[in-house]
């Protein structure tokens, strides 16, 4: 459910969110917090607590459960493999379907997808009755909900949670599905490729080059307070700066191309990086060769 950024305007909008440390979803009125390391640590801690709780409730880990079920002839390794294959097939098919453009191709592929889905549903139902719940599935469920609950706020200062725990628990599955979709859609803007796209833009690079590789200077706050996206963007800035300091410059026409310019710029930086790495490797091997010769003399 990731968003693909194409234009400078789109990049600028997402860049603004990164700088703010939150995104605003106007149709729901949610402010979505961008997590920092401390938040992730909290969630990791919650996962551990859930795992302890699950173990005390009598849950087995996935591995323990599968081993037990195989030993007792309930669910063999072959059946588990079949389930995993079916899951991969459905995921691959969905990914392939997303790439299709021609309606006839899409329609034809839908049938294949439906068959695969049915197969997975059949095997998955039996499997879930036997294998689930496990410590992992229990914790994943808890953490996924916590992830969303702790990210949504009513105010830009991120002080008033959008839902109290009770309100969140009262959400129906459909309502929770809508909230999760909203969250995923918003967070889907901050993919690695989109951060790369933002980082190649002059509105970012110009400011970055003035910060002397100092994130505190750039964001004006402690490194510990920075969100994961802010840190990722900063690292990317450093990387691109290192390429530019090698002396190469991207073709100026890329900056004027509204449609493909950003994508081309990312490709150019990647290609330049490849070239630089190639040069360095060649230099290193040359140095090795010459030092070997010296030793032989």
């Amino acid at each position: 459910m990731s968003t693909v950024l194409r234009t400078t305007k789109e990049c600028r909008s997402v860049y603004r969110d990164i700088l703010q440390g939150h995104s605003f979803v106007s149709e729901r009125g949610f402010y979505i917090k961008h997590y920092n390391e401390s938040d992730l640590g909290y969630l990791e801690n919650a996962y551990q607590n859930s795992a302890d709780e699950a173990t005390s409730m009598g849950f087995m880990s996935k591995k323990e459960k599968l081993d037990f079920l195989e030993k007792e002839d309930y669910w063999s390794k072959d059946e588990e493999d079949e389930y995993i294959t079916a899951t991969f097939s459905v995921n691959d098919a969905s990914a392939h379907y997303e790439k299709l453009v021609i309606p006839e191709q899409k329609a034809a592929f839908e049938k294949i997808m439906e068959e695969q889905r049915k197969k997975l549903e059949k095997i998955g139902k039996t499997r879930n009755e036997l294998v689930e719940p496990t410590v992992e599935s229990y914790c994943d469920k808890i953490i996924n909900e916590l992830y969303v609950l702790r990210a949504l706020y009513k105010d830009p200062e991120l002080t008033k949670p959008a839902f109290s725990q009770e309100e969140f628990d009262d959400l129906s599955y459909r309502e929770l599905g809508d909230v999760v979709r909203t969250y995923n859609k918003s967070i889907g803007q901050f993919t690695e490729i989109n951060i790369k796209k933002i980082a190649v833009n002059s509105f970012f690079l110009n400011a970055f080059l003035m910060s002397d590789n100092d994130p505190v200077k750039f964001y004006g706050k402690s490194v510990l307070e920075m969100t994961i996206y802010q840190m990722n963007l900063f690292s990317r800035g450093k990387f691109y700066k290192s390429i530019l300091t090698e002396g190469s410059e991207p073709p100026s026409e890329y900056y004027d191309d509204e449609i493909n310019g950003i994508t081309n710029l990312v490709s150019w930086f990647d290609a330049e990086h490849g070239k630089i790495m190639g040069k360095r490797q060649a230099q290193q091997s040359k140095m090795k060769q010459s030092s070997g010769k010296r030793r032989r003399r």
Partner: protein
Amino acid sequence: MSGRKNKIMKNKWLFEFDINKWEEVEKREKQTNDKGEEVEVISKVKEKRPVKFALRKPNRKLYDQAELFYGVKMSEGIKAGLLTRSLLAKRYEDDGGAFSEVEKKRYSELYLAIYNKENEYQRLQLNTDNKPEELKVRLSQDSLQEIAELRRELQDIESSQSNIFDQTAENRAKNQVIMWWVLFLSNWKEYDHNEYAQFFDGTNYDTKLNSYDDVEDSDDPFLSEVVRKLAYFVSFWYMGRASSQEDFEAVHEIYNANNPSEDASEAAEGEATEAEATADGETEKAPQSKAKPKAKKRGRPKAKKAKVATKEEAPINEEKTTETAASTETAASTETAASTVTAGVEKAVGETSDKTTDQEPEGSPS
């Protein structure tokens, strides 16, 4: 049941109903005695007081917890050596099926016999050979009786077959999950409280179960009636037979039809006590009521052998909802459900909840 602090603030209820409680109250009357003096006669009389109960409409969290509970109990069952339904079916299949050869033969004989008898009955109705009306009626009645007997035998065989599947890991887990729902959905307004509070004390299954046991162990007929009704209604809801106030009211009527004596006997007793008190009006205190009729003890909701053949048990519906469970069943099917759930929750399982699907959260957060 004192000290129930876990009050539910949200007014979202599946079903609200009253259970009458007979309480002794002092009745003061001014009367004139033989000497012409005015005296105050205090008598103890039994008065009916409706106590409010409600089944909480479960939210998503509760559905999740119930599902987890089911999963844990299922695992426990498997670990303890219980077979799953599919594995049991597979093993019977490998052994040539759940029927013995004699049963198989008898089963097909019965089917054929019913078919023949039904044909015979239809021919009689058409009366092609012009039998006298009296003879026709008599023969028709005989045919119907024979058909009923054959059907009963057929059902017995089917029932014995379905009972084989009673002791599966799924069934055990389902029975326990019904108990779980009873413990977590039951609320009441104790002593005219304005807000509902949980009926069973405790925050988790074990503590609530202890509270349930305390209620069960008390010989209070009111509490016995409460537990019986709660289990009855929750079972209907779990089976997808009731989801709205109206559905539950219909179920309540079925319950009352199946248990007509409860309130009536107590009412009669109450009246008797009152009458007694009036008769002994001269005394300061009326005699205490006689021993109350002991309410039947029910035990925890669990699957027992059904007296009628029930549908083949379907696996538990994985689809969850926080909306009301659908109740599209006809009155006839509700009757069937009622007959399988007589006396509390005798056959609480064996049906799949027909809840409206309310989709699972799509995917997990990125």
